[in-house]
């Protein structure tokens, strides 16, 4: 979680300096969601998510150096500098993106689950969905297909309360988003996404259900993004008070306190960890900025295999 936070802070800084361009969506505040879910993942399980993907990749164990290199458009980034922040992939790690079109990742994730079932490999696909994306029609077509064909897909709704500047209650008729699976016979839960331990518990249970062949499952994880939707969003649609409220339940602080209380780590060990991570991220940024831009002829490669 700390690594994601420090990575995103550095990405924001590099964006401000003009090293990262285009749209850049930060994950700050939501760290416990992906970390909690991925604590329960098996190596060959697949993941597919949205453009808000830096944290997802870090949690998947991917190299911050190469993520930062992609953000800065360099040749040794995860998409060779061609995809950028929103479109990163690592097939080797079963990470299928990074998708820029809201909702489009949902049928894709369902299709990856279809392959897992087809091949009988006992792996599952975790498909992340934003609260805003829950109003896109293809989500419901996917739910129907997944349930009809009992596909091993775990849908995780990252409910950070807003789709860009629109709050959930202004966009969704019925704000219990996990209940939207009921009509298709899909079970679901709503869980606290600011506490990584509750996420782990719920994700473990849901993952086991899906892996057992019973079909899809929906987890609606309540979370919050501290920054604007993307770097250019001043986030004036919410109050400072609301933001403070969530900052006071910071997922990193909650995890830290819980670990200290249970004597899992000492304060000093956590401090050292933070220092180590700061150094790692600094090295990642340096690595990215020292890397080469893609060669000109790369413009024309990868259009067809």
């Amino acid at each position, binding site marked *: 979680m700390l690594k994601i936070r420090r990575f995103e802070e550095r990405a924001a800084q590099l964006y*401000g300096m003009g090293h990262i361009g285009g749209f850049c969506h930060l994950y700050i505040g939501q760290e416990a969601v992906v970390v909690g879910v991925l604590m329960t993942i098996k190596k060959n399980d697949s993941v597919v998510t949205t453009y808000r993907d830096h944290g997802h990749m870090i949690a998947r164990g991917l190299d911050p150096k190469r993520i930062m290199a992609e953000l800065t458009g360099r040749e040794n980034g995860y998409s060779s500098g061609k995809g950028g922040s929103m479109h990163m992939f690592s097939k080797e790690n079963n990470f299928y993106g990074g998708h820029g079109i809201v909702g489009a990742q949902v049928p894709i994730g369902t299709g990856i689950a279809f392959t897992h079932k087809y091949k009988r490999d006992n792996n599952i696909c975790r498909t992340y969905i934003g609260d805003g994306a829950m109003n896109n029609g293809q989500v419901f077509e996917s739910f129907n297909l997944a349930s009809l064909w009992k596909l091993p897909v775990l849908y995780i709704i990252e409910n950070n309360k807003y789709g860009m500047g629109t709050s959930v209650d202004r966009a969704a008729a019925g704000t219990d988003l996990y209940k939207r699976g009921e009509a298709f016979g899909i079970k679901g839960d709503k869980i606290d996404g600011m506490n990584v331990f509750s996420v782990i518990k719920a994700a473990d249970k849901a993952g086991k259900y899906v892996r057992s062949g019973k079909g899809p499952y929906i987890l609606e994880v309540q979370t919050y993004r501290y920054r604007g939707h993307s770097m*250019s969003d001043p986030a004036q649609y919410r109050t400072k008070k609301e933001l403070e409220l969530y900052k006071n339940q910071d997922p990193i602080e909650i995890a830290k306190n819980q670990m200290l209380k249970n004597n899992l780590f000492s304060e000093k060990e956590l401090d050292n960890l933070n220092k180590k991570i700061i150094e790692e991220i600094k090295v990642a940024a340096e690595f990215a900025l020292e890397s080469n831009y893609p060669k000109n002829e790369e*413009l024309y490669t990868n259009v067809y295999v």
Partner: protein
Amino acid sequence: MSKEILMPALSPTMTEGNLTKWLVKKGQKVKAGDVIAEIETDKATMEVEAVDEGYVSELLFKEGDINIPVSKPIAIISQNIEKNQIKDKGKSINKKNTTSNFDENSQNKDLSHKKENLEDKDNPITASSNTITMRQAIRDTIAEEMRKNKDIFIMGEEVAEYQGAYKVTQGLLEEFGHKRVIDTPISEQGFTGLAIGSAFKGLRPIVEFMTFNFSMQAIDQIINSAAKTLYMSGGQINCPIVFRGPNGAASQVAAQHSQDFSSWYSHCPGLKVLAPSTPYNAKGLLRSAIKDNNPVIFLENEILYGLKGQLSKDNDFLIPIGTANIEKEGKDTTIVTYSIMLQKSLEAVKILEREFDLNVEVIDLQSLRPIDQGTIIESIKKTNRMVIVEESWPFASIGSEIVNIIQKEAFDYMDSPIIKVNSADVPMPYSSSLEKLYLPQVDDIVKAVKAVNYIT
């Protein structure tokens, strides 16, 4: 050790910002995450946070300073307060550059192509003082028409409370209320189809796509319902609707967000397709689009939203759909272009006149379907040479159709093969270096015009 805080880039298209407020004072201690200033970008007012801990040793700009280039130092944070105060005394700060153009040295290379040429002082479109931006021209036209006709409403994502993702609908909610300025969920296919249905039944919707990339979610409704129902119903049911929003590339938003839909929509009978290039024609064309009783696709361009230009004295002027504009007369070669490539073409024309003594005619299509065949044909009859400049992919583009028109109608007037200048035939890459290669550049246009004139 001290660190400069630079004017941050806070949006994909931002090249300069205004310092609206300092939230720290000289000498104050800051830690990472503290808000130190408020900056007005091309889109919004944003807070700037400190990234490192230290003391504010210098504020290099005053509150209210405007047009500060991205990457220019705005403050200095130092680790050690005493040391820096000593340094302070001898140091004079040069504030002369506050409102100047880019400082070549501090300007980050990656950003230099963003607003290329659009703020050129020699350009008559941007030079005048009594001018408005394209963003305002579009906004005003929508508001004016909404005042006249109560059946017009506008809907789309973030058009109301957020005031538009690109601030095009700013103020509309306040004036017209929630009934007529409607925020939608992210349900493009649903709300597009709904708007089309409402138009069948007599309303006159304006649908904003946050960008045209997302119209692909709804393209079935646009083509199968909006464009074809008049025909299928034997002329009973028409669909007076405008689909508008930014089209084409912005800056580094990569493959899924940088696509030009001109030829996609122009392919379809039943649709009209417009592509404005200036505040003037944006206004005249949009008014015609809103008054039209057919579905009209109105392709804006994000990079052009800030482009300034003069309007007609008659505020209610219309530019008829289907008319091209001869932006500049000439006799040696015709450039046919539209949307953002008009600006790049005009830039190329200046070079061609200065360095090669070529007198180039520039036609701005404005309307892609129907297309003004007459103006294009008359021009090639005069110049006998043609270059077509467009941002779209080359395969089956608007330019391909123009080539077909010319070979059919003016075959005997051609002195050289027509050259098309397009984006590369690949998805848009993210990396700034490849993005520049992908998009048509002024130099590519110069080369093409030279080539049709056999100048080596």
